[in-house]
C-alpha cells in the first residue's frame, strides 16, 4: 500500500468511525478528555498497524478492540478495587422496573461507580451489543464469569438507576477510592 493510499484509508476510517469510537471510549472511561485521548490513541495505533487490517468490513470491530485494549492497559494498575460495597448495592429486586427513559448522564454516573471488571462487559453488551460469548472472547475470561459480571452489573445498574429516579436517600459510594 502506497503512502498516499494509507493516508486515504486512515482518513476514511476516521471519518466513518471517530464518533463511534469517541462514544465508546467515553462510556468506558467517563471523561471527555480521556475519551478523546483514547480515540486519538486508537487511530494512531490503527495508522501504525494498518497492515493488520486484512478485511475492511471488520474495521469497526478492530478499532473498538483497540480502544478497549488501550483503556484496559491504562487501567491495569487500578485493578484491585473493593467489591463488597458493590455487591451490597447489587442486591435489588431484579424485577424492579424503570419508568421512562434512562438519562444518558445518570447512566454515565452509575457506570463510573462500577469497578472496571463489571463496567467493561456492561459497555460491550449494551454499546456494542456483543453476546456473552463474544465478550468472553474479547476479554479472555470464561463464559460463566461473563454471565456473572453481566448479571451483577445489570443488578447494580438497575438498583442505582431506580434509586436516582426514586427516593433521594443517599447510598454509600460503590467503589472506595
Amino acid at each position, binding site marked *: 500500500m502506497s503512502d*498516499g*493510499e494509507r*493516508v*486515504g484509508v*486512515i*482518513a*476514511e476510517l*476516521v*471519518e466513518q468511525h*471517530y*464518533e463511534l469510537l*469517541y*462514544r465508546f471510549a467515553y*462510556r468506558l472511561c467517563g471523561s471527555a478528555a*480521556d475519551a*478523546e*485521548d*483514547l*480515540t*486519538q*490513541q486508537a*487511530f*494512531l*495505533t490503527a*495508522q*501504525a*498497524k494498518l497492515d493488520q487490517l486484512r478485511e475492511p468490513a471488520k474495521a469497526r470491530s478492530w478499532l473498538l478492540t483497540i480502544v478497549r485494549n*488501550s*483503556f484496559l*492497559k*491504562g487501567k491495569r494498575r487500578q485493578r484491585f478495587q473493593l467489591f463488597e460495597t458493590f*455487591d451490597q448495592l447489587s442486591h435489588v429486586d*431484579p424485577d424492579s*422496573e424503570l419508568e421512562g*427513559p*434512562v*438519562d*444518558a448522564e445518570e*447512566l454515565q454516573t452509575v457506570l463510573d461507580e462500577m469497578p472496571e471488571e463489571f463496567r467493561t462487559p456492561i*459497555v460491550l*453488551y*449494551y*454499546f456494542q*451489543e456483543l*453476546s*456473552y*460469548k463474544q465478550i468472553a472472547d474479547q476479554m479472555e475470561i*470464561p*463464559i*460463566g*464469569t*461473563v*454471565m*456473572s*459480571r*453481566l*448479571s451483577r452489573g*445489570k*443488578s447494580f445498574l*438497575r438498583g442505582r438507576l431506580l434509586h436516582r429516579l426514586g427516593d433521594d436517600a443517599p447510598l454509600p459510594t460503590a467503589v472506595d477510592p
Partner: protein
Amino acid sequence: VNHPTDKPTLREQLDAVRPDSDDLRDADLHEAARAVEASEQWQQTLARQEAFDRQVAAAMQAVEVPEGLQSRLMAALVDARHQGDESDVDTPQPAEPPQKPPTRRRTILQVAAVAASLLLAIATGWLLLPRDVVQLTLEETRQQIPATDGAIDAATIARLPAFDERNFAFELPDPAWERTSLMVDRLKGLDWTGDGRHDGAIYEFTVGRRVHGYLLVVPASRISDPPASTRLSASNLGYLPVPNTAWVNPTTKLAYICYVDQGDLQTLQRLLYPHAA
C-alpha cells in the same frame, strides 16, 4: 453471591440474553430457555429485563461528540506520520498520548495569529517588499515542490523547517479551503534564494477521505509571469514535476500551486466548490 467459575444461575443466564436475539438457543443457556418456555413468570421476568436492556442501550449511545474532534484527530495522525511515530497496540498510553493534537483553543489562536499577521502585511503593504526581490518563472516555481521520479517527496517535505513568515504571511486561498484539515502549525518553509528566509510555504491538506495533497504558496510578486487564474481550476494544468494547477488570489496577492497525490484535482475542485458551474 455466585462465584464466577460456578455454573451460572438461571438469573445469570437470563441476564446474558440480548433483546431480539437468538441467544436463548445457545446450549449454555439451555436451562434458561427451558424455564422461559415452561413458566409464565420467567417469561414476564425476561420481558421486563429486555425492556430494561432497551432503555439502557438507548441511553448508552447518547454521547455528545466534541466539536472539531475529527480535525484534531487528522492533525495528530499527520503529525505522527511526519515524526515516524511507532504507536504500539501492546503498550498504549491513553493518558499521555505521544503527540497531543492541537487543541481547539490552540488552533483558534494559531488561526488568529495568522490572520493578524496577514492584516499587518496588508496594512503595511506589499510596497515594503524589497525591490530587488528574486523572481522565478511560473514553471520554475511549480518545480520548487520536493519531488522524486514524478512523485511528490512527502518525506522531504516532512523534514522541511516550519514556515518562518518573515517574507509573507500564509493565508488559505478562500473560505472553501477551511473544509480541508487545517494544519497551520505544520506549515513548512522553502528557501530557494538561499537568504535564510522562506520564499514559499507548503501546506499539506486532506479533503474528506478522498483527496490528499499540497499547496505551494508564494507571493505573486515573486513570479515573473504569475498565473492569470484567480481560483483553483482543474482544467488549467501544469505537468512538472507532477500535475498541478496554479492561481492567484487577487486580494492577498498570494499565488497558489496545488498538487494532489491522493485523488485528483477534478475531485478536489468538486469537493471544494460543489455549487460551481
